């Protein structure tokens, strides 16, 4: 069983929003980035995985086992970082740790204090006095201190400065030096992901648009730029989405279709970054899967 996390046909509806047939899986030893615009369902999906929200139908499998009736034991093996405050604001970092640690059978003080030192988190300060970034570092230290095999993080990089974001990515790559572990995290800062993520899962309006290897993604789409005069040709070639600029136009196309246009010297093909892929896919909302 190589899948450490597997969602199959997960449905959950709320007033005015629904997760619609969400399926994807993550293998051991890899990092998956979960992206999508605000309100697309990233946090809701994560809350479903952690069973903080009960799903209407479908199944979530963790470490090869269904989470139904099992979630308590399975959570011992997960390091979870929320996007919101979960600590006791009035207590110091040290006291918060004393409250949290007993919940984990495999809590490891040595690792915890090592990360606290590495991340520069003050142990004697009350949590409410910490900056958003420092709280996130504390949460991360907690998530990494009980020998979790799967790290799940909801927007861990928001509120962090670029220097620590870089350090965080180092820590993540450190975690998966053990090929039995895996990391799943949501974010809207795609530049962080571009380098370290093995897989990208993109959610839009409660539906999964794709879940692919990052490497394949950069072949699946191409950005085509050209002068106004070539616009009709491009439009005929079924672009996913097209945008007019003062110099001409820019269009996101399926890689295969774009390559057929490659011989035309007035067109310029580029590898899009994740931001551009996300932007154009969101723009062309009604896209087929």
């Amino acid at each position: 069983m190589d899948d450490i996390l597997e969602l199959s046909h997960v449905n959950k509806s709320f007033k005015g929003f629904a997760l619609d047939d969400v399926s994807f899986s993550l293998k051991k030893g890899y990092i998956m980035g979960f992206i999508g615009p605000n309100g697309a369902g990233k946090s809701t999906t994560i809350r479903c995985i952690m069973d903080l929200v009960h799903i209407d139908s479908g199944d979530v499998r963790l470490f090869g086992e269904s989470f139904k009736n099992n979630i308590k034991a399975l959570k011992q093996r997960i390091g979870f970082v929320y996007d919101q405050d979960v600590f006791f604001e009035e207590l110091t970092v040290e006291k918060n740790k004393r409250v949290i640690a007993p919940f984990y059978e495999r809590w490891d003080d040595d690792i915890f204090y090592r990360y606290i030192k590495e991340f520069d988190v003050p142990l004697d300060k009350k949590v409410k006095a910490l900056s958003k970034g420092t709280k996130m570092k504390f949460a991360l230290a907690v998530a990494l201190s009980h020998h979790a095999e799967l790290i799940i993080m909801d927007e861990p990089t928001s509120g962090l400065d670029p220097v620590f974001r870089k350090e965080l990515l180092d820590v993540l790559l450190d975690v998966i030096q053990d090929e039995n572990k895996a990391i799943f995290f949501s974010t809207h800062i795609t530049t962080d992901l571009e380098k370290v993520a093995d897989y990208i899962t993109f959610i839009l309006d409660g539906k999964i648009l794709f879940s692919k290897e990052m490497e394949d993604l950069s072949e699946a789409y191409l950005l085509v730029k050209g002068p106004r005069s070539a616009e009709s040709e491009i439009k005929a070639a079924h672009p996913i989405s097209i945008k007019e600029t003062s110099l001409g136009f820019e269009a996101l196309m399926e890689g295969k279709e774009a390559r057929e246009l490659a011989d035309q010297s007035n067109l310029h093909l580029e590898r899009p970054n994740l931001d551009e892929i996300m932007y154009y896919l969101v723009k062309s909302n009604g896209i087929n899967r």
Partner: protein
Amino acid sequence: MNSADQPIYQQIRNQIAEQILNGGIEEGGQLPSIRALAKELGISVITTKRAYEDLENDGLIDSVPGKGFFVSLHDKNALRKKQLAELQTQLKQLIGESKKYGMTLNQMVLLIKKWYMED
């Protein structure tokens, strides 16, 4: 395709290939593990894996199950030949480009001589 940056896995593949061919990494020498190299370079495991797979397909490295990756002990001449063939192709392209802009054979030869001697 007229302009697309080389994918990262190719950049890494080329860097390692270059080092192997010019002797920077010794024959039979062990390469870092996929995960260790990924961490060192701050890139994904899959990207690193692809670079290694490419190198293996080109016969530059061997994977020994359970042990890791090693620089092939293969015939280096064959690899050199391959690399030379690649250079020739590039040279042909360059000549084609130069013709487009009306450069004569003499002009090209003069420039090549000049830069070749500079080293």
